[in-house]
C-alpha cells in the first residue's frame, strides 16, 4: 500500500474533500487523525473506518492553543506525523468588495491563511524530528485565478501558495516537502454554498457558469482531488516540492 505505516493529520476532515481524502488514506494503509471544528462529522467516519486506523480531534485552526493540542493529540495517538494536509477552509460570503463588510475578509483569512500558518508552525517541528514528511495545503483554482464576488476567498487561496513556496524552501533541509493541491469546482457543500451565494446577490447561476468554462465540462468529484493528495503524500512524489498541483478539469488553461 502506498501510505503503509504513515501517519496522516488532516484538518477539515469532515468536509467533502476531507472525507474523501480520509477514505483514500485509510485504504492505502495510513493511520489518520481527522481534525475539524467539531467531531460530529468526523466521529461517524471514525466509527465506520475503525478506531485502530483513525481517530478524531476537535480544532479551531485559528486558535494557536487548539492547533498545538491537535498536533499533540496526533503524536500521542499515532506516534508522529508523516503527512499533514492543511485542508480546513471556509468560503466566506459571496459579494462584491464594495458591498462586503471587512469582517468577511478577516474571517476568511483567519481560517484559510492563519490556520494554515499555525498548522505549519506546530506540525513541522514534529515532522522534522521524525525525519521528514509531506505537507500539502488545499488551495484552489481560486488560488491562481480571479473571479468577481469571491475576492476574500481568492485572496486567501493565493496567499497560501506564497506560504507554501516559502515553507518548501525552509523545510527542504529537514526532508519535508510542501505543495498545494488546487481543486477547481468540486461537488461539495462548499461549492453548493458558493452557488447559493451567487444566486442571492443576483450574480447568476454560478454552477452553469463554471461548467461552461471548465474544459472537461463538469464538476470534479472529491475522490479525484483525494487521488492527488495520495500521490503527493506518498513516496511516489519524492522529488515534488514547492509546486502547485491543479485538479481543475482544465479550468486554469
Amino acid at each position: 500500500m502506498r501510505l503503509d505505516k504513515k501517519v496522516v493529520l488532516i484538518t477539515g476532515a469532515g468536509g467533502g474533500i476531507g472525507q474523501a481524502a480520509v477514505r483514500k488514506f485509510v485504504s492505502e494503509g495510513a493511520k489518520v487523525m481527522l481534525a475539524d471544528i467539531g467531531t460530529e462529522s468526523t466521529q461517524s467516519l471514525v466509527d465506520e473506518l475503525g478506531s485502530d486506523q483513525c481517530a478524531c480531534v476537535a480544532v479551531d485552526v485559528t486558535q494557536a492553543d487548539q492547533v498545538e493540542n491537535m498536533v499533540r493529540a496526533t503524536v500521542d495517538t499515532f506516534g508522529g506525523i508523516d503527512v499533514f494536509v492543511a485542508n480546513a477552509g471556509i468560503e466566506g460570503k459571496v459579494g462584491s468588495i464594495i458591498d462586503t463588510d471587512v469582517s468577511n475578509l478577516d474571517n476568511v483569512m483567519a481560517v484559510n491563511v492563519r490556520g494554515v500558518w499555525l498548522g505549519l508552525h506546530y506540525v513541522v517541528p514534529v515532522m522534522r524530528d521524525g525525519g521528514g514528511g509531506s505537507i500539502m495545503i488545499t488551495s484552489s483554482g481560486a488560488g491562481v485565478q480571479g473571479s468577481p464576488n469571491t475576492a476574500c476567498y481568492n485572496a486567501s487561496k493565493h496567499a497560501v501558495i506564497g506560504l507554501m513556496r516559502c515553507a518548501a524552501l525552509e523545510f527542504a533541509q529537514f526532508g519535508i516537502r510542501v505543495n498545494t493541491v488546487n481543486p477547481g469546482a468540486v461537488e461539495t457543500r462548499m461549492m453548493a454554498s458558493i452557488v447559493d451565494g451567487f444566486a442571492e446577490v443576483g450574480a447568476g447561476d454560478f454552477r452553469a457558469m463554471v461548467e461552461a468554462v471548465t474544459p472537461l465540462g463538469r464538476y470534479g468529484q472529491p475522490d479525484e482531488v483525494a487521488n492527488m493528495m495520495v500521490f503527493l503524500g506518498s513516496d511516489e512524489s519524492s522529488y515534488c516540492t514547492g509546486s502547485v498541483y491543479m485538479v481543475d478539469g482544465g479550468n486554469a488553461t
Partner: protein
Amino acid sequence: MAFDFKDKVVLITGAGAGLGYACAVAFANAGAKIAITDISQDALDKAVDDLNASGAEVLGLLNDASDSADVNAMLGAIVARFGRLDIAVNNAGTATPLQEFHEVSEAEFDRVIAVNLKGVWLCMQAEIRQMLEQGCGRIVNMASATSRNTFPNASPYVTSKFAVAGLTRTVAVEYADRDIRINAICPGNVATPLVVSLVEDLSVLATKHAIKRLGTPEEVANGVMFLASDLSSFSTGSLLEVDGGWNAI
C-alpha cells in the same frame, strides 16, 4: 506501486535512454504493451533488448519525431501491431551545448525547435487522430521546469519548452470534450545522458533545487504515470512539476 496499465498500449518517444527509457520500464512493469522510438538505432536496439529481457511486450521503432512522414509511419506501425494507442508520452528532445544567446547558430536553434516543439506537434497530431477514432486517449508531454523558469545559456531549449507548455494547454482544451486528456510534466534536472553531456558540474546544478539533489528518472516516471492513469481523471491542460522545488526558489 499504484499504477496498473495492464494491456494498455503506450507509446514513449525518445525512449532509448534517460527519462524516456525510465518511463518505458515503468509502464512495462505496470503491465503495458509498449512502443518505443529513438533516433539512434544503437540506443533503440539496446533498450528493446533490455525490455524484452525483462519480459515486456515491446515494439521498437527507429523514428525522427521532427519528420511528419516518419511520425505517421510510426503511428501506422503501432496500430498495425497493437490495434490502438491508449497513452502517448511525447518525450523525444534535444538541446544545444550551453552557450550565450548571441553565439547560438540559426541551424542549432532550428534543430532544437524541430525536435522539441515541432516533434511534439507532429506526434500529437498523429496520436490524436488515432485517439479520436477510438474515442479516448491520454497524452503526457515532456515539458520541463524550464517551461516556467529560466536557464541561462540554454535559450533554444528553454524557448522550446515554454512553447510545449502553451501547446499542451491549448490542445488540451480543444479535445477535453472528447475524452482525450492532455497534460505535461515539468521535471527538474535529472542526471540523464543529455544533462550529463551539457553540464560540467552536476553538484552545482543540484543546488538550484530546494531538495539539493538531482531527481531520479523513476521520480519523473512516477509523475508521468500519474498523469496517464485514471487517478488524474479531473486534470487536463495541467503542468505537473517534479522539480525538487526549483520553481519555488
